[in-house]
């Protein structure tokens, strides 16, 4: 009887913390098949202060690829299985305008998280996101002015443009989860700190749409999930 109690105590001591604190990771790579549309060269000659910041020719960033058919700028996030805990990160995400380009091209954030928009150029930009379900605004940001602080209260993928520099295009990905990543450096992504459970992982690309994959995390483990988009002309 005593041995049995000892066993239960030991199990409780070692197994419960494991279950409580176990956290898995979903990682993988985003790739494409087919031939992506050729990106268009950008002529910045009308904006010399930006043109001189680029040693090599600049192209549009609608499709950014890497070696071995890697696809960057894909938002990969947990779309179901991890209920939104409603915790809005205290730290703001930033979106920079530098060399008349948006850095990063796609910025993901949690609903109601602070978004700070910077202008590191020597020219005025107007930052003009074009949401459908959130409210639309349009603000001028001359050089030397402080960051614009905004937030979005509904999930949405929002195209962003600068009317003054028509080649500037980017995206805000407003999500109801903190489990997200944007593929970079050869299509890689990683979603850490996932408690045991069943999840749906969604991958979104601005030109190629969305894909989903189901995955089950049982403990401290890393599950590989890869996404392959079909490149298409647009």
């Amino acid at each position: 009887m005593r041995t049995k109690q000892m066993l239960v105590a030991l199990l409780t001591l070692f197994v419960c913390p494991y279950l409580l604190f176990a956290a898995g990771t979903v990682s993988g790579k985003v790739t494409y098949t087919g031939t992506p549309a050729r990106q268009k060269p950008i002529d910045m000659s009308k904006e010399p202060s930006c043109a001189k910041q680029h040693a090599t020719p600049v192209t549009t960033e609608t499709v950014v690829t890497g070696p071995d058919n890697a696809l960057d700028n894909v938002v990969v996030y947990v779309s179901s299985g991890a209920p939104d805990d409603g915790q809005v990160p205290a730290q703001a995400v930033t979106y920079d305008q530098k060399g008349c380009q948006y850095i990063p091209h796609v910025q993901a954030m949690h609903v109601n998280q602070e978004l700070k928009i910077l202008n590191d150029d020597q020219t005025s930009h107007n930052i003009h996101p074009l949401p459908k379900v959130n409210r639309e605004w349009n603000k001028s940001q001359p050089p030397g002015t402080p960051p614009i602080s905004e937030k979005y209260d509904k999930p949405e993928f929002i195209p962003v443009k600068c009317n003054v520099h028509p080649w500037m295009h980017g995206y805000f990905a407003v999500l109801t989860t903190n489990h997200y990543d944007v593929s970079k450096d050869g299509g890689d992504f990683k979603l850490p700190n996932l408690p045991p459970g069943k999840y749906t992982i969604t991958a979104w690309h601005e030109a190629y749409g969305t894909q989903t994959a189901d995955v089950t995390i049982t403990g401290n483990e890393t599950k590989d999930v890869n996404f392959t988009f079909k490149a298409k002309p647009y």
Partner: protein
Amino acid sequence: MKSRMICLSILLIAATAGSVLAQNAGISSGYPTPRNSFSPAERTGHGLYLRYCVLCHGVYGDGNGDTAPFIDPKPRDFTIATFKCRSTPTGTLPLDTDLIHTLVRGVETSNMPSWRPLSDENRTDLIAYIKTFSDRWKTEKPGEPIKIPPETPVDIASIRRGHDLFQKVECWKCHGQQGHGDGPSASTLTDSKDQPIRPYNFASAGNDARFKCGVTNEDLYRIFMTGLDGTPMPSFADVIQPNDAWDLVHYLRTLQVNRRSKEREVLKAAGGPATLKTPENKSENNSPSNSTTLAHSGGR
């Protein structure tokens, strides 16, 4: 023969009566019938909308009326509740009075006419109805109107500071150095629905010159401080100090070369537009970088 005529007459009367009945019931017209939940004002506004607005703004208020393909710029899409002419900050809903002013005034350089002949009550009912097209009106309150300080004196110093501000915040990129709407970015501008749009040409009209959202100096102040949502014209409220905005108003008035104004008289007396650019005057009135200060400039 006589019986055939009687039969044909009965058929014709029946067909006409059927059509009228169906239209009154809102069925064969293809127009939606008023919802039971409509307030009396919305119900009246619905009828007025079908009479005066539907051809351009469409049955569903989405700006896709029958005439929309032939209109430039496109009619407003009420389903997204984004409005150009507001007294409220960019991104916020306008006040009812803002929408009523738009109805009274019409929108210059567009196909939207003045609806001044309608009664005040009718205009109020129309506004009540167009607000049913978007749920934003149920979940959000209109913004707080921007505060406009009393107009500063119109003198050459103010016009010079306005000229410097025009350069500093780069209004000329779209509107051009002479305000002709021909800046380097002008030809590429599109509105929020990706339709080409032209910047305002300050020199285009005479003494009756109107802006999209008004005619007075205060209207002009409001336009660039709130921005024209849905268009490339941004809000400058975060970057131009309230009093400096009056300097920009005074300078912009001098670009209206076909309109008599106090601003043009003051500029003419001081030596004309060339005086704004001479190094002599800049040294008297400080360089652009010193004479105007952007709001909160100086760092992050």
